[in-house]
């Protein structure tokens, strides 16, 4: 019974490849997600997940179904959209949400239009991912992206903290904040794009953001939140792939739903800042 539920699925090659890929994504994405949350840039991830689609579609049109061309298109589109969103945020003086919504609606429509014009590309797979599609090249892409993103994050760790915590101090000390911000955005785009084959463009951001949002219910320090986010993402990957296998749900939504389940658990009953904690403190104050 336990064997059938939890182990048998991973005896299949494609499930093992999907798991390996999701482990790579879980190691690289959530630490970046923690910084996105701390920098109040969670909205930005919405823009990105829609913004990479036209790039991937353009790649599909130009390069057939070559993974690398689609990936390169996604990277280019993601960077362009990230820069555009950053400029909009500055130009609108903090009222960027309506402009962000505009950007991602247009990007999504453009992507869908491009893909529909191209025969032989399944839109559902691009949007929501497919574990079956994770071949060796895809796996290499995911592992490669994680291998770049994790060490790069370690290198820009201090300037990134400084820039998130106190950009004014950074500027006054003569350290340039903008460059680190751009490097960080590039890493985020890299991770989102690397996940699109397995999870889909719409869901790839979910594995990055949901564990990061949930992490504050499990740890008080930045390093603790990064560790918690990675652990939650790993758990969501395993749960989601099993759900995908047994219930025949696309992998992307299944993994994101699992991550969402863990987030709700943290929100309700996590060790920090959860509803249960708040009530417990409330009762103690009354008693």
């Amino acid at each position: 019974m336990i064997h059938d539920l939890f182990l048998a699925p991973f005896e299949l090659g494609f499930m093992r490849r999907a798991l390996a890929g999701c482990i790579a994504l879980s190691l690289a994405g959530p630490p970046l997600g923690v910084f996105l949350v701390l920098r109040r840039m969670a909205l930005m991830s919405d823009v990105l997940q829609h913004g990479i689609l036209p790039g991937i579609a353009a790649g599909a049109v130009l390069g057939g179904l070559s993974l690398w061309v689609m990936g390169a298109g996604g990277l280019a589109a993601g960077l362009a959209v990230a820069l555009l969103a950053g400029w909009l945020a500055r130009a609108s003086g903090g009222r960027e949400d309506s402009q962000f919504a505009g950007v991602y609606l247009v990007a999504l429509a453009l992507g869908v239009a491009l893909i529909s014009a191209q025969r032989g590309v399944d839109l559902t797979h691009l949007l929501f991912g497919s574990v079956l599609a994770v071949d060796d090249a895809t796996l290499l892409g995911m592992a490669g992206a994680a291998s770049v993103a994790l060490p790069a994050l370690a290198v820009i760790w201090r300037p990134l903290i400084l820039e998130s915590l106190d950009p004014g101090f950074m500027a006054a000390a003569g350290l340039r904040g903008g460059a680190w911000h751009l490097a960080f955005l590039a890493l985020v785009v890299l991770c989102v794009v690397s996940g699109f084959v397995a999870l889909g463009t719409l869901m790839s951001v979910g594995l990055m953001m949901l564990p990061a949002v949930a992490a504050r219910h499990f740890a008080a320090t930045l390093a603790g939140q990064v560790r918690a986010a990675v652990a939650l993402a790993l758990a969501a990957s395993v749960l989601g792939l099993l759900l995908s296998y047994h219930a025949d749900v696309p992998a992307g939504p299944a993994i994101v739903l699992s991550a969402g389940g863990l987030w709700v658990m943290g929100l309700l009953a996590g060790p920090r800042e959860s509803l249960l904690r708040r009530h417990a403190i409330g009762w103690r104050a009354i008693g």
Partner: protein
Amino acid sequence: MSAPARPIQFDGLTLRHGRQPAVLGLTGCLAAGSLTAIIGPNGAGKTTLLRAIAGLHKPAEGRIDRGGLLPRDIALLPQASALDRRFPITCLDVVALGHAARLGAFRAIGRPEIAAATAALAAVGMADAAARPIGSLSAGQFQRVLFARMMVQDAAVLLLDEPFSAVDTRTTEELIRLLQRLHAEGRTVAAVLHDLDLVRQAFPQTLLLACEPIAWGATASVLTEANRQRARLAAEAWDERRAAA
């Protein structure tokens, strides 16, 4: 100190926000090792002046001669609201990050730097709070932590923007003593302040600014009723001109 203090000279300095003047035609000198209060009505350009000295606001006209001081030799303590208090970081880490001003983005913050940060926290009376997250501090405690970070920067010039505005009396007194100690070590200190009693009591030099400089010199000679009246009138005139523009 990383570099000895040098005089900072202003020569016909004009600073603008867009087309609106913030500081108009300031000429004078912050002497090396001086202790100066910058006072004036709201909107008189005090904050903009500090930012310009720190190199964060470009002069529209005139110039600032910093005598070869680098950005890392000038520490600016802005009003506390600029920093994200909900960031999950401990007091000791915030103070230790003050070293980044000298060490840059990558050079290691090692044991001597951590020791310096611990000592600075002790000097501001926050030794027990080293491991506490900054989100749990009161306004006064948080200002003490920012003072500790400024001490760690070990800069020749210290610029403070309303450092005591949200702080209790005891904290103000202790931080003033600390500031006087840093000044006694030969650093140049300039602080934007509102409390004139505090200015008379602790600051030998005063610059009275109302967009244009009204008076600059020994505190007693600047804080006359006539000067303050002139500052009020000048500020009202500027407000009207801005409203008309």
